[in-house]
């Protein structure tokens, strides 16, 4: 084992990590936003709306993420082509981001739905009683309380997503794992670079997970 080439390679590995984190932050933000909309649709009294949201969630929770990533890589440019009538190059990053947002939204939807349902019906009645509309009651009263309660679960899901971002290797994006692999191959130290990458994933994921557990205990008090 010879780890000597890792330190000189850190700048290029950091470039990969930047892409991983960028993808993660954007996917989480988009996933939670879309997931919240899906959760509200799923809980809607409109049967068609809630049926559509339910079908969406069930569908995306039943197929592999890798499939979504590769499929969107092919499909997003095609769909944009239909809409705009011209060929648009979207690039692997955008198509991956869309895939992550749409896939993760299904999971975030269920977390958000459980969070909203954990808030007592009395709170929405109180919000209505002072004259709030549905959207005001949700934005000002229900969602702020629900998000506080579900923060630990949202973070856990985010840690899973952090690991899953490595699947972008399938469409050739150079994320942290792919950077480590490529660099290791060039340096003739494939094993060492992969071991290093594994250690980095472990430290970040396990560290974050421990923090979430501590947060959970504090929120429970």
């Amino acid at each position, binding site marked *: 084992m010879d780890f000597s080439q890792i330190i000189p390679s850190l700048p290029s590995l950091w470039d990969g990590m930047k892409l991983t984190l960028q993808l993660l932050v954007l996917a989480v933000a988009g996933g939670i936003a879309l997931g919240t909309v899906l959760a509200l649709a799923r809980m809607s009294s409109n049967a068609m709306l809630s049926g559509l949201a339910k079908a969406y969630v069930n569908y995306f929770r039943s197929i592999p993420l890798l499939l979504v990533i590769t499929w969107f890589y092919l499909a997003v440019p095609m769909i944009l082509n239909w809409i705009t009538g011209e060929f648009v190059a979207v690039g692997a990053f955008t198509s991956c981001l869309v895939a992550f947002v749409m896939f993760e939204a299904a999971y975030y939807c269920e977390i958000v739905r459980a969070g909203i349902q954990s808030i007592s019906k009395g709170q929405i009645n*109180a*919000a209505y*009683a*002072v*004259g709030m509309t549905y959207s005001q009651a949700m934005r000002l009263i229900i969602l702020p309380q629900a998000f506080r309660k579900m923060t630990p679960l949202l973070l856990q899901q985010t840690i899973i997503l952090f690991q899953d971002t490595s699947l972008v290797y399938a469409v050739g994006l150079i994320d942290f794992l792919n950077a480590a692999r490529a660099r290791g191959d060039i340096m003739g130290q494939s094993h060492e670079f992969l071991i290093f990458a594994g250690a980095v994933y472990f430290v970040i994921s396990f560290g974050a997970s421990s923090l979430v557990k501590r947060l959970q205990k504090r929120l429970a008090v």
Partner: protein
Amino acid sequence: MSMIEIKNVSKWYGDFQVLTDCTTNVKKGEVVVVCGPSGSGKSTLIKTVNALEPFQKGEIFVDGVSVGDPKTDLPKLRARIGMVFQNFELFPHLSITENLTIAQQRVLGRNRDEAMQKGMHYLDRVGLKAHAGKFPGQLSGGQQQRVAIARALAMDPIAMLFDEPTSALDPEMVNEVLDVMVELAHEGMTMMCVTHEMGFARKVANRVIFMDRGAIVEDCEKEEFFGNIDARSERARQFLSKILQH
């Protein structure tokens, strides 16, 4: 003039009828107490007044506005009716000050200063000005309920609905809430109160309504209701003897 007019209201949950042909009214400045055994539909009835509970038959008018009409702007109507709940329902993620001002600003469009001034005025009236910066969880049940009353009053309501406001309170906190309600009644607020506090009813009610199994069984002047027990229905007498025993 009737502030709240309930006409032949019926409501079903599936096949189960929870309200049966309820008719009554609350005049401007009147205090009406609604009592009855649990499950008699009194909480459901009071929640139909501001459309928190839909109803399938009959009509309700608040200040002449039809509650059941799909064209009615419900948020606007509800903003004019104050409501106090059994479990207080203060917004736990907001400070007492924010609880008092959020609807004034977001619903009535008042500016911050105006909303603060009004909120603090009513917080002072319920004797809790010193707690303005706290959160609901830091207050006792009685204090939370007084804040809830102040929150409703800050909207300048034309009528107040109370849904068992003291049932969830420890006994020693009941009076601090009733005192605020008595004061309100003396000031001429139009009030509809679901409560078992017969002392409160005797002191300030104009009329008492007794409900049983979803129907209004008694609806009469307070003097008649308490003064002439023998003329009451069998069910009302049973109920009264149970709650007045101790």
